């Protein structure tokens, strides 16, 4: 293949855009898995649930899917809080979190998928938007709105959550809860309350990612499977508990996938991306971007 600078540039730019979506998809997991140590294997399925909820609201009201998604955020926040209560009561408190908790989320994933296919049928669902087909290309570089919107949603969503973690007292407590529960008790904060809030945020971000997913591609109940490996890989590459780290890892992951797809052939992009993860785990298990 002849070297074409436009091709490389596009591979990188599209990879960054894709990475933006991955960052949003991973952000909730960074909270659940990285900070709370909850191995929520069902996270991508919650994203799909968010997409279907957005789809249903859009069909019912005719509102723009992104607006629908925003309306749904509080619902998912509450759902997350309730969910954590169940998880805490039946698994974490009993000390069975590791293996049983994992299987629990597997079960949840299964139930959510089957329920969605019962309600919506096995078909793909999608939402028509006026901007879906627009490309704000600059010169030879493609900037499809379909990929830009998730990126922007990622920036706003992750930015807001990061700001919350950095600037508010409760937010700092969330960031600390994974590292030292005892310290929180000392300052008279109930760790359970904090964890519940954090898991609520995790599902809120999942719903936001769901809205974005619906813009990116048609969604079926099993669409989450595509992302399980990716989001966990990105979370670990990013050093687990770091929002900034998972951002950077997501961008790197997107760029690697798309550059590989462009030059080596798309067939090899998962192998290259996951090979990188395996290598990272073997050599630097604390993640590429851990501080």
């Amino acid at each position, binding site marked *: 293949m002849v070297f074409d600078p436009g*091709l490389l540039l*596009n591979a990188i730019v599209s990879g960054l855009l*894709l990475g933006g979506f991955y960052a949003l998809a991973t952000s909730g997991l960074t909270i659940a898995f990285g900070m709370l140590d909850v191995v929520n294997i069902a996270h991508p399925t919650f994203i799909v649930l968010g997409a279907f909820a957005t789809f249903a609201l859009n069909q019912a009201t005719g509102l723009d899917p992104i607006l629908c998604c925003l309306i749904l955020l509080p619902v998912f926040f509450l759902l997350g809080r309730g969910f954590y209560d169940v998880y805490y009561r039946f698994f974490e408190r009993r000390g069975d979190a590791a293996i049983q908790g994992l299987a629990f989320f597997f079960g949840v994933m299964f139930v959510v998928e089957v329920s969605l296919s019962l309600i919506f049928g*096995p*078909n793909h669902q999608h939402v028509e938007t006026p901007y879906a087909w627009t490309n704000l290309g600059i010169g030879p570089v493609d900037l499809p709105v379909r990929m830009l919107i998730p990126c922007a949603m990622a920036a706003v969503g992750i930015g807001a959550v990061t700001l919350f973690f950095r600037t508010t007292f409760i937010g700092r407590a969330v960031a600390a809860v994974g590292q030292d529960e005892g310290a929180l008790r000392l300052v008279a904060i109930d760790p359970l309350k904090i964890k519940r809030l954090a898991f609520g945020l995790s599902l809120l971000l999942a719903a936001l990612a769901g809205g974005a997913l619906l813009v990116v591609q*048609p969604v079926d109940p099993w669409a989450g499977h595509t992302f399980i490996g990716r989001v966990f890989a990105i979370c670990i590459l990013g050093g687990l508990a770091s929002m900034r780290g998972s951002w950077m890892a997501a961008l790197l992951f997107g760029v690697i996938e798309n*550059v590989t797809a462009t030059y080596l052939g*798309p067939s090899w992009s998962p192998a290259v991306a996951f090979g990188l993860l395996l290598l990272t785990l073997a050599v630097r298990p604390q993640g590429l971007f851990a501080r």
Partner: protein
Amino acid sequence: MMKFTRRSLLATGSAMVLAAGLGLSAPALAQSGEPIKIGFSMALTGGLASNGKAALAAMQIWEEEINGRGGLIGRPVKLVYYDDQSNGATVPGIVTKLIDVDKVDLLLSGYSTAAIAPAMPIVIQKKMVFLTLLGFNMNSEFKYDRYFSMIPAGSDANRDFSKGFLEVAATMDPKPKSIAVVNLDAEFPKRASDGLKDNLKKYDLKVVYDQSYPPTTVDFLPIIRAVAAAKPDLVYFVSYPVDSAGLIRAIREVGLKAMMVGGGMVGPQIGSFKTMMGPAMNNMVIWDTYVPEKTLNFPGIQELLAKYQPRSQGLDPLGFYVPPLAYANMQILEQAVTKVGKIDQGALAEYMHANTFSTVLGDVKFDKMGEWSQERLLLVQYQNINGNGLEQFKQPGTQAILYPPQYKSGNLVYPFEAKR
């Protein structure tokens, strides 16, 4: 000793539960006027469920019709089917259950190769007639003389699949010189793309891009970009619905230019896909099995669609793709059994090899491998699509048939240019 006893209890107990649960203890019904049982596995959950359910709907329409007409050779008909969960590994169990336990009289396949292949050794061993649905070039491996294939691809499906595309491409002026091939990493797409490359020897075409992509691909922009950079005259895709959608979006977003674009995409045949993509499919050239063009007005097809569409809730709203194929299988079965006059697998197979059947997809004749003796895949160009409405696709004109010549209903519009 304690453990040993518990263990043996457990084993025997579970064997009994298994036997009871699988319905082995129920004595077989034997009454006069006993229904003719037609058995099959079908994908009712999992990835292939939308097509599997559409197929089932068409088969049930036939079941109602035939029982309304007083049954088959005087006996009522009953469909016996189990969900294979879109998973081939469940098929051997289901097929043996159908044959051994349910004692079905006639056997059909589930949807597509993955559901057919695992059934083959069993079917061969039991010497059953086997009508299959969308199995791609299956019998070349088994060479079973009671296999009959419902896919209008002809005896050399791998190659025949892309024949129309290349034939039509060759009619353009100037003649195309290069081709890009993109396929999904899966059984059918890989075979179809290999078949295309075999065909190329006949044409003076250079392959300038040839890549496959994994089913987990999210972003198709890099693929289309790389295709565009190779500047091919023809672009041939073999893909499944989600990735077909992703590819078509990317084609528009990149603004891909070529003389002819399309090929072996799966998805555009389905109504919900047509409304999802709408005008984005304009001028794409894609294979098909049935479209409502005047040249394809086979007897019964309109009636079938009229019955199917009202019950398509949650399924393909048009039903052009799988339902006619599934229904045609039933028609063939009906005609063969009626003419032979009894359920005799050998006689049925012999009759089916020897005769031509009239179906909603036109006349079907099988060759000695059980494939259609006359390859009849359509090549369709999407034209004049406005907006995302469903009704326009029920009318002639939006899906012009370019190939085969006997059904031609429109002219090729080229070159292909995707508006950004």
